[in-house]
């Protein structure tokens, strides 16, 4: 009988959900047993069921969800020792029906081919799953131009957001003549709501290293840099471990696989600036300067880090590369529609039932992603909007849910594909508040170089604040639209050029909600604090004092068994009283 393998999801999300104690429990119960191996794996993308534990026994893989220490103990006793599957806790099963199987079957996993399945700290597990075979093929059987052609043929486009053809980018860097070239991985995933890069870096770091090595060979670079945000300590840890192992095995370093090609990678930790996701800003940051963008041309392909040709690709883009080289461009381009080929990983979050990661073929309608893969909206609430593309993107309404996810179709709506963050909102989310949220984000993150981005976003934010406080006017809406155009035209980089998108799309699709704030002085979603008021229904209040005892700011007064009253001036609208009231006497208007 083969060994039973126990895999515990220990990516940041798994740990945050309580995977640590579960791993410790399983480890302490099973340590020293020859027939069982316990290991840590990355994120399989079913974050809503974390902590996850997979048991691979006699070829059958069963994944349990929402595991705690007690369940872990039961799994060992019943499943591992007696072969008895604990049906009510099963999430996935590779040889029988299981509740979440369809969510996996809807996906095509190229980028996420290994995450959640292998131990990211063990290079042998990566190698066992075709790891470094793409690099070997590229180095031994292909010329750099053939590699570039293969990537061009695959139709792969930059997954960081803009969707520039990766092969073309490589070709420019390849053609640039220089004694030194850099190959950079953009791992500065800053879009709020996107976490696919973190998941790949934590769960399958070698796929990124291999992608970089193939790319470096194609463009002729000998130095690689991974620019990774410091907010991802686990990703950096796994990358460092992967770098060491890849060097030991000769996949990085001098004379790789005896082919004469030399390439090594080091990590630069980002210091926390969203704008550094922009190529020229990132280059400035790598050079040790303030991360401020500069005009292009010259493009980084000709003049990048310290004036040398530099190619920058995002994590997800790079994780595709080894697979494309190994399986061929045709296998890749058979997925997708139009000019968008292959798959896209989406980070599903917000008001949905099944948050996490999912990789789907390009062209799947938004509706299918949100309702089939992400399981729809919880608490029987109504879908209101989906936010795509982070601060550069936009909010799309129900009517546009049949839009296929491909670069062109999404751009046509006014949103952007972006890095793949999808934040779903229901009727309890205020659209004006969301627009304000994004504006305050870009306002903070604007590097300040271009006046329209620096000051224009500030003015837009002030207008939105005015509207959310009930002091807006119809002219404000015109002013917002006017400023938006000027900021787009007057900004040097993508941050400023796209900063007004969240406002423009919400004005376009949700104008009535703005008008409710302006004309009726009402926030329909009951979010904007100045426009809502909490009160206690005298008919319902039983005088139990719970609300008064739990109010964090002592805004509620009243004696036992007598009516309680909320002082509107003190109330901070935190909702605690609603939560604790046993009779539903607290209302918001």
């Amino acid at each position: 009988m083969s060994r039973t393998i126990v895999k515990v999801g220990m990516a940041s999300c798994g740990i945050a959900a309580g995977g640590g104690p579960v791993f410790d429990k399983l480890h302490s119960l099973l340590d020293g047993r020859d027939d069982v191996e316990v290991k840590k794996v990355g994120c399989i993308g079913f974050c809503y069921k974390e902590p996850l534990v997979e048991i691979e026994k006699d070829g059958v893989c069963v994944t349990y969800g929402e595991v705690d220490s007690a369940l872990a103990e039961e799994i060992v006793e019943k499943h591992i020792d007696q072969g008895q599957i604990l049906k009510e806790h099963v999430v996935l099963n590779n040889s029988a029906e299981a509740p979440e199987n369809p969510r996996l079957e809807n996906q095509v996993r190229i980028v996420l081919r290994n995450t959640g399945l292998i131990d990211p700290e063990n290079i042998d597990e990566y190698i066992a799953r075709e790891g470094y075979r793409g690099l070997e093929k590229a180095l031994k059987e292909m010329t750099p131009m053939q590699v570039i052609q293969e990537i061009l043929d695959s139709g792969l486009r930059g997954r960081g957001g803009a969707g520039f053809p990766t092969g073309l980018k490589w070709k420019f860097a390849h053609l640039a003549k220089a004694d030194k070239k850099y190959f950079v991985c953009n791992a500065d995933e800053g879009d709020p709501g996107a976490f696919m890069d973190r998941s790949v870096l934590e769960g399958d770091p070698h796929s990124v290293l291999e992608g970089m090595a193939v790319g470096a060979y194609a463009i002729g670079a000998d130095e690689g840099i991974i620019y990774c945000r410091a907010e991802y300590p686990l990703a950096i840890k796994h990358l460092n471990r992967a770098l060491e192992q890849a060097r030991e095995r000769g996949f990085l370093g001098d004379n790789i696989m005896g082919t004469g090609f030399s390439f090594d990678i080091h990590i630069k930790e980002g210091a926390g600036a969203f704008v550094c996701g922009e190529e020229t800003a990132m280059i400035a940051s790598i050079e040790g300067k303030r991360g401020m963008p500069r005009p292009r041309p010259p493009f980084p392909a000709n003049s990048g880090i310290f004036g040398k040709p530099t190619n920058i690709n995002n994590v997800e883009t790079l994780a595709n590369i080894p697979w494309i080289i190994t399986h061929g461009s045709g296998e890749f381009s058979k997925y997708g529609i139009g000019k968008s080929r292959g798959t896209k990983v989406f980070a599903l979050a917000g008001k949905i039932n099944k948050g996490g990661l999912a990789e789907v073929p390009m062209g799947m309608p938004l509706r299918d992603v949100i309702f089939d893969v992400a399981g729809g909206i919880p608490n029987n609430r109504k879908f209101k909007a989906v936010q795509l593309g982070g601060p550069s993107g936009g909010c799309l309404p129900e009517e546009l849910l049949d839009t296929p996810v491909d670069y062109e179709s999404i751009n046509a709506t006014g949103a952007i594909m972006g890095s793949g963050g999808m934040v779903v909102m229901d009727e309890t989310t205020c659209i004006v508040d969301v627009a304000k949220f994004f504006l305050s984000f870009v306002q903070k993150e604007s590097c300040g170089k271009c006046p329209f981005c620096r000051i224009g976003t500030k003015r837009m934010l002030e207008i939105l604040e005015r509207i959310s406080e009930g002091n807006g006017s119809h002219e404000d809406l015109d002013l917002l639209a006017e400023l938006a155009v000027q900021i787009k035209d007057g900004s040097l980089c993508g941050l400023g050029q796209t900063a007004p998108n969240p406002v423009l799309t919400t004005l376009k699709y949700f104008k009535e909600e703005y008008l409710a704030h302006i004309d009726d002085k009402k926030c329909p979603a009951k979010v904007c604090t100045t426009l809502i008021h909490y009160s206690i229904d005298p008919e319902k209040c039983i005088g139990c004092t719970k609300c008064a005892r739990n109010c964090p700011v002592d805004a509620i007064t009243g004696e036992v068994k007598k009516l309680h009253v909320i002082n509107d001036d003190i109330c901070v609208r935190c909702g605690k009283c609603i939560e604790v009231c046993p009779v539903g006497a607290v209302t918001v208007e």
Partner: protein
Amino acid sequence: MTPLTTESLEHLEARLEPLIDKYKGKKGITIPLLADVQKELGYIAEEAVDFLSKELDLPAAELFGVATFYAMFRLQPEGKYVIRVCRGTACHVQGSALIGEQIQRHFKVKDGETTEDGLFTLQYVACLGCCSLAPVMMVGNEVHGRLTPDKAIQVLESYRTRA
């Protein structure tokens, strides 16, 4: 924050000495240098910038320029645990503002401030990348998800007993 005295200034120079050897004559060093200063001292002390600027022949303005540009660098010492309240989109729609407010009230600190006992520094940060567990906060290097205002306080109080 206590200003550095003359004695500790000498002490400071001794602590920063290894950085001079590490970075002298190299290019693109500003960010890692400042990161090392922060690792050593806990923050970017003005005295440290003056000292390194002379020793490494870098304009102090350049060092301050970089230190004030990036969110990671602090010009003030911080508490033992840094609370990073995620203000990303997913956390926002799941009510992270209320969590931040509750922490502010409970510990009597605002964004960027440190509690009187020096235990916690509160920071509002952009996305921590654990969106499906929103709302989230990070305490030190540990991420805590699926929070409510009350749960956040409970978690933080457990660090107090740990300290």
